[in-house]
């Protein structure tokens, strides 16, 4: 499991790109359905965006968004899937 995040600020806006490794199994796959239900994006510990996903989000999901903030802020990405597995990571905004 891994989450790769890049967060870069320009003119007071942080551009966030996250690549999450997850198989996102559809119901008929072996062990499926097994998919990320919720992704939380937080800045300096406060929630900014919640993504709720179906299994129809592609394998190894990509999420890109923009939030207010400045370089030096901390952006965290955490996910939880329908089997209770989870992962999270934190990066400093450049």
């Amino acid at each position: 499991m891994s989450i790769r995040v890049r967060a870069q600020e320009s003119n007071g806006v942080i551009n966030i790109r996250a690549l999450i490794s997850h198989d996102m199994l559809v119901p008929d796959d072996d062990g499926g359905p097994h998919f990320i239900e919720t992704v939380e994006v937080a800045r300096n510990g406060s929630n900014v965006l919640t993504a709720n996903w179906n299994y129809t989000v592609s394998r190894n999901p990509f999420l890109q968004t923009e939030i207010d903030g400045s370089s030096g802020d901390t952006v965290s990405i955490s996910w939880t899937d329908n089997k209770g597995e989870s992962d999270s990571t934190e990066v400093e905004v450049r």
Partner: protein
Amino acid sequence: MISTKRRVFLKGTLAAGTVGVAVGAGLLAPSKLLAAWPSEAFGAEGLEAAMEAVTGSSDIADGDVTLSAPEIAENGAVVPVSIESGLDNVTEMAVFVELNNQPLTAHYVLADGAHANVSGRIRMGESSNVVAAVKSGDTWYKTVQEVKVTVGGCGG
């Protein structure tokens, strides 16, 4: 290999769609969406039911919503989709694929500091209209674009 996966995916969406109807038959309150993962909305079968579960209505007006998606997607397993809006006070956004068995693909809840600008990659079982909806204040607006999925994609 590819066509095997295609079958598997289609069967998967059909099976899940049936369960979704049973789950989605209950009462749907859009306000529930703000808290937990909205299982009723994700399980809803058919575009109208899914839109109603998320927005409270299947008949929402076109508005300032920009949906960027390819006109032709060679691979239905990975279709890049972006939603953006210039509307003020956007608190929710949603992406629906009309002909997927469970049309609701992604639902976003925006808090303070979030911009109405989210991109991701979605699965499409076949060529279909994609609907992007945005809630500004108390009102939902939408835009629709057709995405053609060519042979070799994830679904027929």
